[in-house]
């Protein structure tokens, strides 16, 4: 085998490795975001740590043992990255104490709880009135500051937040029901 063929084969192997990694990442990334959301103060932090964890996972992909759980491995990386990130975040009411943080991380890593997926959410969003669905999605859209939307809404901030919280509660009840029905099958 000449050098050129060996190079091509290596390149081809790299492509396959990258594709395999991307397939696994796409499958497990939503779970990582959900996991991190309960540990980090803002969605921006979640985005940052998810990116960092994905990069580290790619760099260490050679260490990942085939046949073991990629999701569990990725969550472990994400948890350590979240911990590192948390140390850099200034103290605020949004940053929980160490013991609370550990409890939440332990619970979220466990397999016992329900896992909300996009497929559970979309039918529940469709059950809302169109205006309610749009409002809920709008306030969760990238770059949207909820306080500014509240001010523009004409309602008082507190009334506005209550409306959003009511919508969340309705959707969560619907999603929980959908997951229970799915598990019962």
């Amino acid at each position, binding site marked *: 085998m000449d050098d050129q063929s060996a190079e091509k084969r290596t390149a081809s192997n790299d492509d396959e490795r990258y594709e395999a990694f*991307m397939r696994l990442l796409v499958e497990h990334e939503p779970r990582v*975001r*959900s996991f991190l959301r*309960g540990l980090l103060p803002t969605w921006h932090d979640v985005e940052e740590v998810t990116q960092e964890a994905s990069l580290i996972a790619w760099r260490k992909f050679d260490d990942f043992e085939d046949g073991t759980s990629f999701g569990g491995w990725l969550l472990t990386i994400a948890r350590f990255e979240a911990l590192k990130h948390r140390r850099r975040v200034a103290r605020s009411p949004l940053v929980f104490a160490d013991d609370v943080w550990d409890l*939440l991380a332990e619970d979220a890593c466990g397999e016992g*709880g*329900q896992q909300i997926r996009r497929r559970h*959410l979309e039918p529940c969003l469709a059950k809302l009135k169109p205006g309610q669905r749009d409002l809920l999605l709008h306030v969760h859209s990238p770059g949207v500051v909820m306080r500014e939307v509240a001010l523009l809404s004409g309602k008082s901030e507190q009334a506005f937040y209550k409306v959003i919280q009511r919508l969340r509660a309705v959707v969560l009840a619907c999603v929980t029901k959908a997951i229970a029905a799915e598990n019962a099958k």
Partner: protein
Amino acid sequence: MNHSDLEQRIGAWLDGRISEAESETLQQELRESAEARATFESYAQLDAVIREVADTESVGAISRGSGSSVSIPKRATPPYARALLAIAAGIIIALTAVLYFQPMKAGRNIVRIKGLNGTLTWIGDGGQIVQGSSSPQMRTRWSNVLSEEAELPGGTIEGTAPDSWFELEFHDGSTATIFGDSILTFSDQGQKELRLKQGRFSASVVPQPAGEPMLIHTPAAHLKVVGTQFDVEAAPESTMLYVREGKVQIRRMSDGKTVDVSTGHRVVAAAGSEMLPQLVAPDRTWAQTPVWENTSNSGNQNLIATQETRDYDGTRNLLLSEEPASLPVQDTGYTIRSGDKFEIRYVWMGDNWWTAKDQIAIKLFTTDNDLISGTRTTFATMLSGTSITAGTYEAASGSATATATEARKRLFVAIDTQDGGGELEGVARLDNFQLQVTHFPEPGLPRLDDFQLQGIPFPDPPPPPAAEIIIGGNIRNGDFNED
């Protein structure tokens, strides 16, 4: 643990607006309860998945506004997802373009009803008259026309009861709300035009297209709005404009005089008036208000406490809300004696979203440790009664007598509200609050007559009972009685 409170706190954390105190409470709940942690995790997961959906949908929205190519969000989107998003965005752009270039049809819906209350009449642009009510007992065959989330074409909406209100939203997000007996005509043929025949409305207007400001007509003035928040009150001879944010141009009908009114200013357009914008003093928070404290669950001292807008006598007034986020309380420093007669008086007015059944509730209470933070025991609640004339100040008063149970304890007073309409969104204003006490002999203790009957000399008889002001005038008024 109250589940609803827990959910509110989780929501506040997710929205990044949780206070230090709420965060402490939430963390304690999470420490102690696996159930609370499960609830927290569910909401966190839900938040993440909603953001995932919103993120995808917002790609289309970005291209829709600018007409430019699709903006890819900052995060590393997997290649297959990018392709799907590009296809989805393409479809949205195409649909948007089709809708955009469709000629405007007469009778198309231009606003969405965001909320309503009381009895209302809507006259559509085809002359169709619709009477509606938010009350389930008064539902008509038009209830589906005048209901929340329903869409309407241009027309006229009329509030036909003092506690009526109606909030509409144009498709660009600008909102307008009328209150009480008000008549508002609205249209949007590329440029929004509103006509307030009478009454009061508030509006929040997003920036309007260049050269097409929102136009508002009242009997006494014309207003030109580019993008702002403001309140208007129209009477046959005059129009009051208060600009909360931005700038509004107002032209008086009688002589064409035009002035620009900017943030925090108020002007009255009436024949013969100077029509000079007056600076309205800025709102003050609880933190800036002496003596009174917001003791609601939120404990938020940065909410608005007093305002000069919609005043009673040219001074600031106390802003009251039915929402649980606000509960003004004062530690009067007064030690109660048995037999004390407490009398209160004040003026008040129901404002936005205040229903005909809501009332002010003045509560006198003591606490188990004489501190404002102690466990409360309310010994008197004095209600204002319901409003007689909506939108105008009216007087209220009440009295209560302390017994031996309250004696030797510190007196606290709360200015609360009592909901009667089922919605905790009402706002009211209160001014010139006064609390006075008159000391009467404690029942059962010897009185002057008793000493005389027993033949015991009483050389220096006490003076007859006299009222002592605890709150009122310049005493412990919290800057809203006379300032």
